[in-house]
């Protein structure tokens, strides 16, 4: 069963901004799915349309088999969201937030209370449980939102940049909670700007750019989209860019030059060339971040 499906989804905002341009995407049930893209790529727009908060201009969308336009009511029973840039109410405590939110969704007070205690513990928020949110740091406030959404145990969770502003340890706690949810059968659809996060916790990834879907699939599948396996980074002021194209595909990013190479042979040659030019160079295997920069960069600057 597909959890989230979009067919030729288009969104044109009032004023004419085309935020989504015929996006067709499919997300399997029970997986962690990450949607990546630059600022303004259309991630939030896509997520909000699928989570029934925003109407599409055209195209179709289905969540757990229900039409996003005509069957929103059925979908809303089964989903929960964390909006981008949402924040808790300052005058409520952490526990109250989670508990009242669950009650608002229709849970009895006892169950709401138990579930909120559990998620607060899982997210390492116990010591703040009875603290007013106005006294929490920015990252902790974000975690309260994560707790609210995760505590719903909804079939699909739409999380718009859930870990923005969180410290590395907190991010890992959130990853644990997300992965546990996915293991128990929930589907998690998230957006993020952290490539390591997407790489670590998602089963599948999609990249959009200027409202168009560039790629989607497992990390392995995405890596196959490019013939390149290695990359080299060279400071741009130390070398002439034209000299590098024989070793692989060259991309200039600010003050760095990146060379994507298909095999060890090219990297050896580039290594020798850099030594002869006395310029520093670092090699590494292709990561999701490289893939992102390459795919998006090519679309941006081609």
């Amino acid at each position: 069963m597909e959890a989230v499906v979009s067919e030729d989804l288009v969104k044109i905002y009032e004023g004419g901004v085309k935020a989504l341009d015929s996006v067709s995407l499919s997300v399997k049930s029970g997986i962690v799915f990450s949607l990546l893209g630059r600022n303004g790529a259309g991630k939030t727009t896509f997520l909000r349309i699928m989570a029934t908060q925003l109407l599409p201009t055209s195209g179709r969308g289905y969540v757990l088999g229900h039409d996003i336009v005509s069957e929103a009511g059925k979908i809303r029973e089964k989903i929960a969201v964390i909006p981008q840039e949402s924040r808790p109410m300052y005058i409520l405590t952490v526990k109250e937030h989670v508990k009242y939110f669950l009650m608002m969704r229709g849970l009895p007070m006892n169950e709401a209370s138990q579930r909120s205690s559990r998620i607060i513990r899982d997210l390492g928020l116990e010591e703040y449980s009875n603290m007013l949110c106005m006294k929490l740091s920015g990252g902790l406030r974000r975690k309260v939102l994560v707790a609210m959404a995760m505590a719903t145990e909804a079939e699909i969770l739409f999380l718009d940049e859930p870990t923005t502003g969180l410290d590395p340890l907190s991010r890992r706690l959130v990853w644990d909670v997300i992965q546990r949810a996915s293991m128990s059968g929930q589907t998690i659809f998230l957006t993020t700007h952290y490539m390591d996060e997407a790489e670590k916790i998602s089963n599948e990834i999609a990249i959009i750019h200027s409202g168009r879907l560039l790629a989607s699939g497992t990390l392995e599948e995405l890596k196959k989209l490019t013939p390149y396996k290695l990359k080299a980074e060279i400071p741009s002021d130390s070398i002439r860019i034209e000299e590098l194209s024989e070793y692989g595909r060259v991309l200039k990013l600010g003050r760095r030059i990146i060379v994507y190479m298909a095999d060890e042979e090219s990297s050896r040659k580039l290594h020798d060339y850099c030594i002869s030019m006395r310029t520093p160079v670092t090699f590494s295997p292709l990561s999701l971040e490289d893939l992102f920069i390459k795919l998006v960069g090519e679309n941006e600057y081609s």
Partner: protein
Amino acid sequence: MNIAREIRALNALVLMNGLKPIVRSPLWLVVELSFPLTLIFFISLYASEKAVSEALIGAAISLMTLSGLALQSDVVWLRVELKFQDMAVASPISPTTYMLGLALSELAYSSPAILLIMVLMILRGMITLRSIPLILLSLILCWLFATSLGFYLSTKITDLRHIWALSSLLSVLISMLPPVYYSIELLPEWARILSLIIPTTHAALLAKDAVSLTSLTLLNKFISLTILLTWTITLTIIAAKRSTWREK
């Protein structure tokens, strides 16, 4: 509709946006009271006993109306600043329950003030058992129409500063300017006719009639009730059908 679930949702919204914040900053209760009590105080300085009684009725009506209008700022704040409405939209709660829950939470702020006004009216011997139904009816209708109006407007406006301005203006236009605190007979003919468009004028007429501060003919009573009901029903339907829940 699952009644138990709706009640839980209402309870949650009242706790979240009403009772808990009130307990933590009770000064708001005083703020609620300060406006009507100040007006009553001024009126008592230079007007008759009867005028003070009228002002008390007016205070109750204006408190209910203001409570409904206060919904506007909270809805916009929850939607724009906290993105809380986004979380509510993508959840089983219906827009009507959301509106009602928040409206009840606003009522939690004004109910101590309304109670005090009621006690003052009882102490002055204004309220009899027979007058209670009509007073309650006009108060509830005022609250409903103002709530619907507030919710509808709040879903259309995206800037908190706009809603603050609009909400203040509406408060003056609906609860202070028309003959709510004072007697309609004090107005010149043209203003009297103009004021009859406004629903709170009729609520005040009905409530004042109930406590014998004015005496309406049966026909006039019927007309006032019809106008008040028409406003309330129309605005409730508009709020239910035309408010923006999912954005376009």
